[in-house]
């Protein structure tokens, strides 16, 4: 019997923008043959706020709160990237104390972001339990943010040239306690998921993206490392004093969804390791560098990229010598990583598309900007 006997006509359906597993307002147009995906097309822009354009009408300090709204799961990392870019333009450097505190807060943010990813990814696959557990652990980190800078989600914790707030009493003890609290919980998630047959069945061999594809699509972050490429900007181009800390870059082998899960779990452990090292070595000294009140950076441009929880997060700031940036361009990791969706989803089933969207770890605030 010829293969074409059971072929059906192509079915085009919309997944999203109001779909619980598209992590916001992503719309994917799926072309289906039966239940097999023959093509996908992403429609983005439902959350477009024109952040880059807003940046052209704000002074350098005023734009800092807006970058928190790009990747709201990792607001502190976004703030760090922007502050480093403007500091490069101004040719100043944050004092050592500020740098160490920045590392602590961004690494805690990496844990918080990965916890959210884990919870939502599990929820998409059908395991609801871990979602409640990760929210409980994330609360510890958010409490530290609330006590340190007064906000929980969109923190605005860093300022250009250093920090605005001095550490509160008992910061070190609380950070250590949070690390001690979260570290055993990660093992617990592994007990819930890593060996679970349903979890393995849904993830193994799904959405394979090998190293060559990753490089062609510009995919960075845990997705690239799961494909076996040892590339981490914290090691490759150390910023904010990351060269002082000892940590490993976890890598996977197959580049499938299961490997990405394992890489992110290991990254959380490494982040805890960095925080524990950093909190021991907070030096004394000022927290704010010598920056002018009215910032007028010299004419020029600066690009700084940092390793955000989702991948390479770059800020390109052009100055024309006035108080406002001439242009701010954000290179968001989610936006670039989302391009690989079509490659991964082609040939898989509809249910796998949900798993693949979850594994990319997109935040639509960052994709649409």
């Amino acid at each position, binding site marked *: 019997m010829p293969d074409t006997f059971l072929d059906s006509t192509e079915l085009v359906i919309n997944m999203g923008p109001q779909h619980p597993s598209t992590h916001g307002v992503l719309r994917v147009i799926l072309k289906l043959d039966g239940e097999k995906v023959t093509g996908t097309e992403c429609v983005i822009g439902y959350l477009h706020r024109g952040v880059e354009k807003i940046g052209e009408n704000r002074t350098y300090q005023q734009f800092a709160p807006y970058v928190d709204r790009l990747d709201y799961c990792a607001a502190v990392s976004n703030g760090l990237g922007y502050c480093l870019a403007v500091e490069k333009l101004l040719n100043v450097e944050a004092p050592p104390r500020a740098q160490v505190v920045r590392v602590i807060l961004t690494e805690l943010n990496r844990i918080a972001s990965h916890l959210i990813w884990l919870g939502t990814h599990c929820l998409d696959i059908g395991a609801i339990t871990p979602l409640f557990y990760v929210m409980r652990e994330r609360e510890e980190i958010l409490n530290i943010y*609330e006590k340190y800078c*007064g906000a929980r989600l969109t923190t*605005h914790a860093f300022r250009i040239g250093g920090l*605005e707030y001095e550490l509160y009493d008992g910061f070190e003890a609380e950070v250590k306690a949070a690390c001690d609290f979260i570290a055993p919980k990660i093992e617990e998630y592994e*007990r*819930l998921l890593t*060996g679970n*047959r*349903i979890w393995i069945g849904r993830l193994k061999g799904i959405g394979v993206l090998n190293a060559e594809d990753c490089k062609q699509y510009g995919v960075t972050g845990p997705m690239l490392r799961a494909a076996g490429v040892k590339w981490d900007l914290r090691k490759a181009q150390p910023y904010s004093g990351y060269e002082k800390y000892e940590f490993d870059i976890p890598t996977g082998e197959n580049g499938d969804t299961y490997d990405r899960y394992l890489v992110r779990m290991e990254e959380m452990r490494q982040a805890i390791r960095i925080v524990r090292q950093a909190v021991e070595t907070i030096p004394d000294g000022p927290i704010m560098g010598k920056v002018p009140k009215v910032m007028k950076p010299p004419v020029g441009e600066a690009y700084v990229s940092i390793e955000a929880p989702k991948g390479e997060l770059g800020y390109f700031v052009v100055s024309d010598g006035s108080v406002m940036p001439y242009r701010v361009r954000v290179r968001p990791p989610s936006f670039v990583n989302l391009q690989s969706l079509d490659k991964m989803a082609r040939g898989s089933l509809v249910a796998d598309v949900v798993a693949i969207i979850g594994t990319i770890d997109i935040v639509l605030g960052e994709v649409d900007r």
Partner: protein
Amino acid sequence: MRKLLRTIFLIDLIEGLLVTFHYQRPKYMCTDQYPTERPKVAERYRGAPRLNNNPDNGETLCIACNLCALACPEKLIVVGSERNEKTRRKELTTFTYDLSRCMFCGLCEDACPVDALELTQDFELAGYTREGMIWDRQMLEEGPKPTKYEF
């Protein structure tokens, strides 16, 4: 053989379920009973704005320097002032704060040279109208009225 037994007796699933049942004890409950029990937010929390008065004589601390309005990214603060001919000083007349556009970044608070404008720990800021979110000087000085729930 071992793998077969694990498959038959669903060991991997039971391992996960043990974690779930471990947390059934009331000791591990961590949900905030929000409207009945208000959480105590941190000291530095950035919530509803307040215009502070001098506790000694009840006069406003604000010197109408307009720095907060300049620092605000959303330009939502409008400071009205007039010059007192006797003392040759600027005096505050009106102060408008559009809370519906505020993103609680704290830049106005940082800019204030006399600690007159302050973001307080009040976080219950929902309102019924857009006009009601534009706070005038009186509202800012008195602060929002605490919400009471009855059960």
